[in-house]
């Protein structure tokens, strides 16, 4: 339904006036379309996970213990921190501080790298044990969900990097920084998905 509303909104005549009046949504409208689409996919994946888990509680509980919860916790902190840095970056550009914006984005990117390294070590551990998508239903979901999210982190970092480079060369200003808000929105979405994924896959018993 959200999508239909969005299409209606997107195609309605006085869209621009409405948006200018409310300054909503932040960033580029079309990125919100994709954020909704992405959340839809993840939502369906999560629902499928919950549904399947309900039918295989013992299997899921058993193999959940094999996951490295500390690593996941580190990653949760890394993503929350990076989201905070991104917020600071947006605040900086609103003050017309391109340099500050660039530096905050670099910091956010660094936390993204931390996430990738920690997650990569987890994957290395699984793969060295010969675990793959066909090992069992739990690992099918665990690997599918986290790997799909992993790729989104990479994509989000590419977007942040592009925004950061443009910020460094003075491409944004307090008056015009849609690009920063767009990248920030996408990155918060990636973060948000992990905030659901972490308790669902690693913690919930």
């Amino acid at each position, binding site marked *: 339904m959200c*999508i239909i509303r969005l*299409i209606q909104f997107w*195609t309605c005549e006085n869209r621009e006036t409405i948006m200018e009046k409310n300054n909503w949504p932040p960033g580029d409208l*079309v990125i919100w*379309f994709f954020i909704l*689409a992405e959340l*839809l*996919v993840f939502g*369906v*994946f999560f629902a*499928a996970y919950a549904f399947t888990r309900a039918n295989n509680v013992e299997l899921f509980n058993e193999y959940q213990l094999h996951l490295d919860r500390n690593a996941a916790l580190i990653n949760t902190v890394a993503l929350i921190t990076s989201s905070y840095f991104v917020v600071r970056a947006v605040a900086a550009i609103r003050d017309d501080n391109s340099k500050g914006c660039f530096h905050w984005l670099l910091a956010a990117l660094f936390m993204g790298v931390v996430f990738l390294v920690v997650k990569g070590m987890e994957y290395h551990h699984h793969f060295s044990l010969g675990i793959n*998508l*066909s090992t069992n239903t739990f690992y*099918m*979901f665990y690997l*599918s969900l986290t790997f799909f999210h992993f790729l989104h982190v990479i994509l989000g970092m590419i977007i942040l990097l592009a925004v950061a480079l443009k910020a460094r060369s003075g491409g944004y200003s307090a008056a015009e920084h849609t690009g920063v808000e767009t990248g920030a929105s996408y990155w918060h979405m990636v973060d948000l998905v992990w905030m659901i994924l972490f308790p669902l896959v690693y913690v919930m018993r």
Partner: protein
Amino acid sequence: MKYESQKVAKLYFVAAIGLFVGQILFGLVMGLQYIVGDFLFPEIPFNVARMVHTNLLIVWLLFGFMGAAYYLVPEEAETELFAPWLAKLMFWIFLAAGAATILGYLLVPYATLAELTMNDLLPTMGREFLEQPTITKLGIVVVALAFLFNIGMTILKGRKTVVNLVLLMGLTGLAVFFLFSFYNPVNVVMDKYYWWWVVHLWVEGVWELILGSILAFILIKTTGVDREVIEKWLYIIVAMTLITGIIGTGHHYYWIGTPAFWQWWGSIFSAMEPIPFFMMTVYAFNMVNKRRRNHPNKAAVLWALGTAVMAFLGAGVWGFLHTLAPVNYYTHGTQITAAHGHMAFYGAYVMIVLAMISYSMPMMRGREACNSARAQSMEMWSFWLMTISIIFITLFLTGAGILQVYLQRFSDNPMPFMVVQEKITLFYWLREIAGLVFLLGLVLYIASFFVGKNEPEATVELAK
């Protein structure tokens, strides 16, 4: 029409319509064989009729796509076609190869054809939709390369519009993925896995880029809406198509020996494949509603809107009906699949080619913008006859499929295939009748090219 070389499209469109007639006739033969099992047996067994039916469809759609490209690329690029002579030469080569292949299917047993064309050297024959002799497949590659070269050079020397770029990407993808038809290992699972890289990545991938760009061209021309707006939509629609459609290939990997994780990946992504079709419908109607001018070619606008709606129904809705793995477990390989296939191909690809023909043919035949009111009215009659009969064909096949699934797979005492087929004969009769109405529509469609030739062109007022 702005450029003389666009006229080469006319050849392609005439051939396309001719082969379309052949496709429908063989469809009717097969439909009757479903009811009267020994009809034309053993002269034209079902598998031969089916090869002719499906191969003609593919070939005439390719003719249609190529014709559309030859018409719209020069106009978009604002330059003459790079080599009109090459386009004409390739037309005759492709037509000859196509005709020879179809005659080969009809005149000699398939095994003899395989032997004559030395299939053993590089066996690629005998797989669904890829039944063409290896030599024909090589010919298709040559024609495709020459065609891409011609189109690519034209785009390179002219204006680079989004419509042209998306079309070129679609056509290039078509040629690239066709190469997987040469990979045919003994291992059936590997064979099937990569067979879908041709079939799925064509019809649910790169062909949709072609569909999208042709539709965008027609909408730009007939509505006068700002090109920027239409091109933005085009990008978003083809983006959603590939984002959902590439992983959506997984909906073919449920039961062919591939691992079970595809049931999740395939279900989730293919369930979203209707989204780009839905967007296409919204966008087509939006553009027509926001039109800045009334184009006198009402028939072309009707086809363009029709393709947006029917592609959503056929590919989107009917595809979604059986794409989720738990449903597909029961419906895989039944008349449900056939129902979906018929409406999706008609809605997405037949109609877009007919829309392009409808838009461009009057100008290539010397008209200013469109045909006479009488010709257009007849064409629109044919639109409704063909479209409504394909809806009924789809409904009847869906009915047949639901019964088939129940009797053969779902009930407590599953019945053998042939017993079930006899029980659902009524639906096959109804489908055949709907097929005859379709043929009537097609006859009217062709007749519309010959009526009202001496009457003046329809004007906007008349068209209203």
